[in-house]
């Protein structure tokens, strides 16, 4: 877990959170290793867990008729995760659950990042835009769409796996999503070349 203890500058107060959620991985270390070995057959690799900070917006999305001012009935709940470093959002098909983490863990992950980070306002706007884009695709123009946050933004530490290893021909590092097992190739080299 040492990878997530940052050593950078302190983050500004508006990016700090009180009780972030540390999610547990759905994908095990062995499964992450299997993903790596599927890309690099016969590879020997080491796996370590890392967490990535996300803003979590829980939104209530309702549609209403053209002639009705107030939406009726229960809305649809959407959980949107916004990358706290890059600002890129994704609609989660789940509600983030896990153990409580300390605000220091959250701050240290943010402080590792040297570039510009999205503010809370920007993160919420991204979340609402995503939810809206999803709804607008399927409803007719006569409908109104109302998106209201169920609660304020919370911090979520999303689990991932870093797998580094090599077989006879190649060496590589990949990042495996700790929730769905998808991967991103961070680095891949032929053996003997830098």
């Amino acid at each position, binding site marked *: 877990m040492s*990878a*997530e203890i940052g050593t950078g500058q302190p983050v500004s107060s508006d990016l700090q959170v009180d009780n972030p959620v540390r999610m547990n991985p759905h994908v095990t270390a062995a499964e992450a290793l299997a993903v790596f070995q*599927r890309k690099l057959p016969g590879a020997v690799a080491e796996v370590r867990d*890392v967490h*990535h900070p996300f803003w979590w917006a829980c939104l209530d*999305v*309702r*549609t*209403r*008729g*053209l002639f*009705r001012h107030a*939406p*009726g*009935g*229960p*809305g*649809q709940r959407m959980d949107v995760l916004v*990358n706290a*470093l*890059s600002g*890129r959002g*994704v609609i989660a098909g789940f509600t983030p659950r896990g153990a409580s983490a300390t605000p220091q863990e959250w701050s240290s992950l943010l402080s*590792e990042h040297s570039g510009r980070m999205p503010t809370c306002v920007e993160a919420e*706007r991204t979340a*609402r*835009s995503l939810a*809206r*884009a*999803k*709804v*607008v*695709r*399927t*409803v*007719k*123009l*006569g*409908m*109104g*769409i*109302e*998106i209201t946050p169920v609660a304020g933004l919370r911090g979520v530490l*999303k689990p*991932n796996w*870093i797998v*580094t290893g090599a077989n006879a021909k190649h060496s590589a*590092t990949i*990042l495996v*999503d700790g929730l*769905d*097992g*998808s*991967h*991103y*190739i*961070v*680095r891949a080299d032929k053996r003997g070349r830098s």
Partner: protein
Amino acid sequence: MNIETWFLVIYFVAMAGIGLWTLKIGSKGSEGYLLGGRSLGAAVTALRLQSSSMSGYMFLGAGSLAYTKGYFSLWYAMGDIGGGVLNLSILGRRMRKLSQILGSLTSIEYLEHRYPSKWIRAIAAPVALFCIFFYVMSQFIAGGRGLEMVTGIPYAWALLVAVGVIVFYTFLGGYLAVAYTDFVQAIIMLIGMVWILIGCLQAVGGWTAGNEAVGQINPNLLTMWGPDGIESVQWGVIVGAVLVFSIGYMGWPHVNVSHMAMKRPSVARRASLYATGFNLLFIPAPYIVGIMALILLPTLDNPELAVFQVADTVLPDFAVGIVMAGIMAAIMSTADALLLQSGTIASQDLFQRFFKRDMSDKQSVWVSRFTVLVLAIIGYFVAVNDPPAVAEVVIFSTTVLGAAFVPVYIAAAWWKKANVPGAIASMIAGTVSSVVWELTGLVDVTGVDPMGVGIVFSTVALILVSLATQRSHPVPAHVLEAMKETDKIGAIPASMLTGQNDSLAGQVPKDA
């Protein structure tokens, strides 16, 4: 009010009722209402594809072509009959598979994912919007002409009612009116058209007797070479006529969405069988009715009304009402889908993407509403003041869309070297060449159809520019991997569905 008008009024009220009911369901926010899926079977895919691409043209344009050019018009029918099968065979399975691997939901988004550049969307969206506007306008004219004939009210008022009903339906129709109603419309269209054809052939004493009578008017009308005979044939125009609807379909963004909505890639095979069956039954009918109208209605002022007038002449009143309701259903479903798509393109693909990224929920919907209203108003004034022929408008917009998009859609699924600069060059070359060819009158001078020219220009541009820029703009590895998987028959392996996830790029720790 005559019985035909009553049928139409009942139909309009029923459609509005369904729309309001759907709104009520929607506003209850039932779980899953907002979420769609790739779930359409073969029959729905095939008939939706056909009904969303024909509609008003078949009832006005096809009859008009046949009335003025005789059996020459069957060149268009031939392209039309083969179009659905070609489209499903060439694009169907591959586009379905590739779009799922790349995670695309709309056909323009699919192009942008396959050719990853914002310029793809920046070019494709306005071209699609431009052509969709013309196609929608042709539906307005068709609706107005139909109402004018049935109700007897002046064209300007009939057009206003038709546009009003279509816009009203676009605003109020619920999601029920999207895929499955297109399927129902296709069946209504088929029944209505076959009914008119049977009534028409009975009235002229059978097909042989009808042909003999047409031959007495002008023997050339019975040939495939046009009213002036084989001496005046322009082969380039004939090739273009076949191309327009045979491959032009593959350029329609709203038609290609059907591929992406299929339940499984393998559905494409069976869907092409259904499409062929539908086409063989439906497509020749309006052309034959248009030709036979020369006997039944020799002094018709407006050839576009040939099918309507024949229906009015040969069918009993109640049947005319039912058939007219079916025709209006077809026109409305197409216009509604196109208007909605144009609203989405304007708000999502253009406005939000390029002008105001932080657009709010309300602003986005209002941009869509505003776009639909503006298109409807412009469409009304163009259609009421100097209405162009439906066939001309449909053929023009299909030509431009075909020239702009057919090569990029086909290459997207089949050619691994097709890259971003190639796709951009192809879309620009196809659009510019076909529009210039049409507007400068080069068709008459050269005898070559703009469709053929546009396709040649856009294909050559795609190939040459892609090959020349392979080093500077290689096709991304994840796209190549997805295309390799698309080559194979069978389900998408789980490893591809959980494949290289670019959003993870933003989660790589510094010390990785």
